[in-house]
């Protein structure tokens, strides 16, 4: 206590024992344990991936390179063949995916989420086959048309603009038909499953993974294990609901269900006391965030070129700062933390950015819940409204790229961006999803910025003392360092693989260590943290934070600004400054 002030001053002192006594550090250890384990599984298979990529190059490379005037059929075939190199397709990868799988999709029969007999799987496959045959026929027809159009363009040496244009249109149509046929083909391979045993096994694994470190931190393992049964069961229930067909259509995902079911329990029959030792929001969330860091790969920001970087990396921080200022100065948000979390989820990328920012500034669980809730509601609305607006008002030649960039830069959640983009067309889907992806990379920058700001400015203001470097280090949320370290290390490995052979980074990191390793766990950890938030949230407290509708006003203001600035920047960059580069997309 500072003398005479009556203010509690948290004067920290660094102790090495923190590294095994604090959850921030354990989040880093568990996260890196899983990442390193995934590297051990996949990295020895880089030779096989190289072979697939080299074979694709040998087969289609020359034909793909014969012109740069249009994207020929051979160019697309080369791209498709290279995409087949995925380290996660090795047998261990397939087993890992199956073992860590969530509940399956279902429509009317809830049992389909856990179990499917061979007879039912066969019947489903047969039904899907009929659809596939139709789609395949359309694809074949579109391919024949594309081939004919390409031959005409090639006969003119790819120099006739009209021939090139009609060939490109025909090839684009073939690609759309191929996408639909590929998705239909996937559905023909329905296999029987029984997820119950795997879900139990996975629960036991998670219980050990989190329980042992917690026992070192002072929570008895037996008590944690008992509570974990409850938390895990609710988590499975959240996945069960989020995988129901209608809920999927509306984009109502696991975050909503986890918080909703948790809150429903805690505000009606109450969270059982014996479950509380496993209600460890921060612990699960931080571990998930360290895993998330591994997929924040810096090389990806180059993907959409200079125009895209301005849309995603210039508009986003501008919107973040102006909205934060608006929250503090104009509507006087009572909580700086809630202000920062809403700014992050609205301007960066929804739920994942909200989680990172909330942990970085040590926001209350109710504040995170509120921010996530706002983001989910507006995502569902924007997913429907934006494509309608674009189709109805944008010039046809700008719907795909300008529309895609606009949606990618403004709709919060990646899945909703993909759905809305796909509604406009393949190109819009790709542009929208890529803009969202490079915006996702900003999570690391924003989380670090928020952590630094709250540690050095806000907390100093709250405690009334100036802090030195050691104090900053003591207060700084350490998991952010784990998050950033994972991002830097994996960015370097990714770039290393790509410089060895173009496309190898994707095969080994994107489609190996990450989607075949860390991603399999991250979703589970985030959903367990959301369940914990719900189980510990009092509805009345949540209402308090919503007082005067300020969070809603803040979100609406920020999102409106985001919509205007993103559209403006996308137009200027894609059509005024870099029109020629845009034409190559």
């Amino acid at each position, binding site marked *: 206590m500072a003398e005479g002030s009556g203010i509690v001053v948290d004067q920290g002192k660094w102790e090495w024992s923190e590294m095994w006594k604090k959850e921030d550090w354990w989040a880093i250890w568990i996260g890196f344990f899983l990442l390193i384990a995934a590297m051990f599984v996949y990295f020895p298979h880089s030779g096989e991936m190289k072979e697939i990529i080299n074979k694709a190059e040998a087969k289609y490379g020359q034909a793909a390179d014969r012109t740069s005037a249009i994207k020929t059929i051979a160019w697309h075939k080369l791209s498709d063949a290279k995409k087949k190199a995925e380290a996660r397709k090795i047998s261990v990868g397939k087993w890992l995916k199956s073992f860590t799988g969530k509940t399956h999709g279902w429509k009317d029969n809830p049992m389909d989420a856990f179990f499917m007999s061979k007879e039912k799987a066969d019947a489903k496959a047969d039904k899907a086959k009929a659809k596939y045959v139709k789609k395949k026929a359309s694809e074949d027809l579109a391919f024949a048309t594309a081939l004919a159009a390409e031959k005409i363009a090639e006969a003119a040496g790819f120099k006739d603009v009209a021939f090139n244009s009609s060939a490109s249109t025909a090839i684009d149509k073939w690609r759309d038909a191929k996408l639909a046929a590929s998705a239909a083909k996937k559905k023909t391979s329905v296999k029987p499953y029984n997820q119950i045993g795997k879900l139990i096994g996975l629960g036991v694994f998670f219980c050990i993974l989190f329980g042992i470190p917690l026992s070192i931190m002072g929570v008895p393992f037996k008590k944690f294990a008992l509570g974990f049964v409850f938390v895990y069961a609710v988590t499975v229930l959240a996945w069960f609901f989020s995988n129901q067909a209608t809920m999927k259509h509306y984009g109502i995902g696991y975050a909503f269900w986890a918080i909703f079911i948790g809150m429903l329990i805690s505000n009606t029959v109450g969270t059982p006391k014996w479950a509380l030792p496993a209600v460890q929001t921060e612990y699960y969330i931080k571990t998930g965030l360290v895993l998330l860091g591994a997929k924040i790969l810096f090389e990806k920001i180059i993907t959409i070129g200079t125009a895209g970087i301005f849309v995603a990396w210039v508009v986003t921080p501008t919107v973040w700062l102006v909205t*934060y200022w608006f929250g503090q100065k104009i509507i006087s948000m009572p909580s700086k933390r809630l202000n920062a979390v809403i700014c992050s989820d609205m301007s960066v990328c929804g739920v994942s950015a909200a989680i990172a920012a909330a942990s970085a500034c040590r926001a209350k669980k109710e504040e995170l819940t509120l921010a996530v809730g706002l983001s989910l509601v507006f995502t569902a609305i924007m997913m429907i409204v934006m494509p309608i607006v674009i189709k109805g008002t944008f010039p046809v030649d700008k719907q795909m790229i300008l529309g895609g960039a606009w949606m990618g830069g403004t709709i919060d959640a*990646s899945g909703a961006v993909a759905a809305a*983009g796909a509604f406009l067309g393949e190109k819009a889907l790709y542009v929208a*999803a890529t803009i969202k992806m490079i915006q996702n990379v900003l999570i690391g920058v924003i989380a670090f910025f928020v952590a630094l700001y709250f540690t050095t400015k806000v907390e100093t203001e709250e405690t009334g003392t100036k802090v030195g470097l050691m104090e900053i280090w003591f207060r700084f949320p350490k998991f952010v360092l784990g998050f950033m370290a994972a991002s830097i290390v994996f960015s370097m490995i990714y770039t290393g693989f790509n410089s060895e052979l173009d496309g190898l980074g994707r095969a080994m990191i*994107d489609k190996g260590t990450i989607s075949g390793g860390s991603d399999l766990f991250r979703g589970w950890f985030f959903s367990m943290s959301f369940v914990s938030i719900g189980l510990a949230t009092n509805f009345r407290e949540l209402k308090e934070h919503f007082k005067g509708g300020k969070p809603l006003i803040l979100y609406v203001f920020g999102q409106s600004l985001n919509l205007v600035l993103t559209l403006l920047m996308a137009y200027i960059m894609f059509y005024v400054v870099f029109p020629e580069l845009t034409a190559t997309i």
Partner: protein
Amino acid sequence: MASTEVINDSRAKAWVKLVFYCFLIWVFGWIVGPYIENNISTYKQIVQIVEERDIDSAAYMYMDSVGSYDGEYYLTDSFKHSKRDDYGMTKAFFAGIISCFLILGFGWRFIMK
């Protein structure tokens, strides 16, 4: 005896509330939701695309969504294929990244005081 009855009564109310909310979920998932899907044409089309292409419209991160990988691949290859010198680590590209940090620095200095 009376206090036990009160506790049992509020407990029963709590369970009734829980069952009622579960009923509401059912109403949304099986009646209201499908009704909206079938009666708003744009929504119907989006649902069709989501189903056909197997898009996880509830995904929160780019890696959970199919389009991101394919999009990244498509765009990177498109730019490389065009062999233009204004793509890649150009001055303009770095200007975009530096702008981001300058904006944050400006905000730190003047907005977040």
